[in-house]
């Protein structure tokens, strides 16, 4: 009789697992990659157009082209945050995917949704402690990337 954990039993288990991975991959509902990419491209483009319109608006209010970027980003954040608070952003996110997830709107949603979710655990450990649980990686690796790029930039300029 085969003992559990013997090399033969292990081999058979691996074979069974491989067969099953194939079967389950065959039966899995396919992610509509083409549709998701298209929608993300169009919606992401529309978010960028909105950003550009906001920049023109702020320039009319007297900001320079460079200065206008900051209130533009702030406005997009406010819009995404309010829609998250109203409980509709998750539907927009499901529809548009990366189109609204990659721009600053997705970043805002990740922070606000966490803050709302954990408010019941209090303002210090709930909101304060967990607000960045999804946004944390973006901040950490954003800073790391900026550092690396900064060093490379310095090196290239030094040469």
């Amino acid at each position, binding site marked *: 009789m085969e003992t559990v954990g013997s090399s033969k039993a292990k081999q058979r288990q691996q074979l*069974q*697992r491989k067969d*099953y*991975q194939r*079967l*389950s991959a065959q*039966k*899995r*509902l*396919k*992610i*509509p990659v083409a549709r*998701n990419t298209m929608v993300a491209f169009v919606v992401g483009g529309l978010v960028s157009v909105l950003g550009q319109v906001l920049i023109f608006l702020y320039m009319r209010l007297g900001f320079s082209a460079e200065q206008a970027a900051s209130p533009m980003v702030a406005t997009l954040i406010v819009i995404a945050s309010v829609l*998250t*608070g109203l*409980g509709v*952003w*998750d539907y*927009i*996110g*499901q529809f*548009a*995917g*990366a189109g*609204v*997830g990659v721009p600053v709107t*997705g970043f805002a*949603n*990740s922070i*606000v*949704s*966490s803050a*709302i*979710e*954990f408010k*019941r655990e209090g303002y210090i450990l709930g909101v304060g402690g967990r607000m960045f649980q*999804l946004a944390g990686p973006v901040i950490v690796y954003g800073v790391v990337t900026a550092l690396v790029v900064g060093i490379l930039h310095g090196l290239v300029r030094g040469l």
Partner: protein
Amino acid sequence: MRAKKKFGLQTVAFSRPVAIISSATCVGPLEGTGPLQGSFDVVYPDMLNGAKSWEAAETAMLKETVQMVLGKGAVSSSSVDILLAGDLLNQCTSANFAARDLGIPMLGLYGACSTMAESTGLGAALIDGGFATHTVAAVSSHNATSERQYRFPTEYGGQRPPYSQYTVTGAGALLLADGLHHQGLMPRVTHFTIGKVVDLGIKDPFDMGAAMAPAAADTILRHFSDLNLPAEHYDLVVTGDLAYVGYNILRELLHQSNLELGSRLNDCGLMIYDRNVQPVFAGGSGCGCSAAVFCGYLFELLRAGALQRLLLVGTGALLSPTTFQQGETIPCVAHAVAIEMCHDRMAE
């Protein structure tokens, strides 16, 4: 030496089938407007129903369901020997907090989404063993408590894959009793097959149907072979929450083992929602899924005589956020309870 009531490798047969004298269900708004609307006792108008948190809402739902099952069975809480209850949350939060107010001796269970079948089987075993005259099997799940524990904040706007499932907001309870005092025609628990933990290497926590299907196939095949049953023995073999993907894989796995159940095989995760209209992706999941479907719709079909014999196969994915982040695969389990509409055998 072989245990007296054990048949085959994993199945126990109750010497006196245990009576299910009443059942109760409570669900959330999406389930209450789905294809099984009208089969639930209580439908909450929204996900909180006036509670101060999702967890408090789920606790209230489970508590109300247990109170309803006692009321329908006309049994006081002091006559119930043991409450067997569970849910999906860490520390079995909803079950333990509901039991705090119920005053019934309580055993908390965790079998992920298999807990309805697990608690029913254990509740019947305790009665048949002579350790109790009345037990209550009760479980709950809540979409928002599960989302925040297992996945993301409820308002997070990530895009879910089409093979993911939607956790049912719902609770179900059964009141089980000694056949000696309940001899009339009613649904009775006759057998209980305890499943093994099966893991065929699925890692994606959204792909739970595919992860659970092998466990369901293993337990169903074991049940049929332990008792040497023909494929047409049960009017319905119903799995807990495999949904569209897992159900189709299960069909294929049973076919490979020459068990053709045809239209006798269904899944609670497919029955509770209309996945063409409701935003539930592949279908329902959560222990409230099999609980709300079995304790409501299917229990009524049994009582009405539309089903004579049913095998409820609870299917549970035993993952945690920690294990999948650490790259572990998803171990799964399925337990089966056989339920038959019959008189007390000893009385005949």
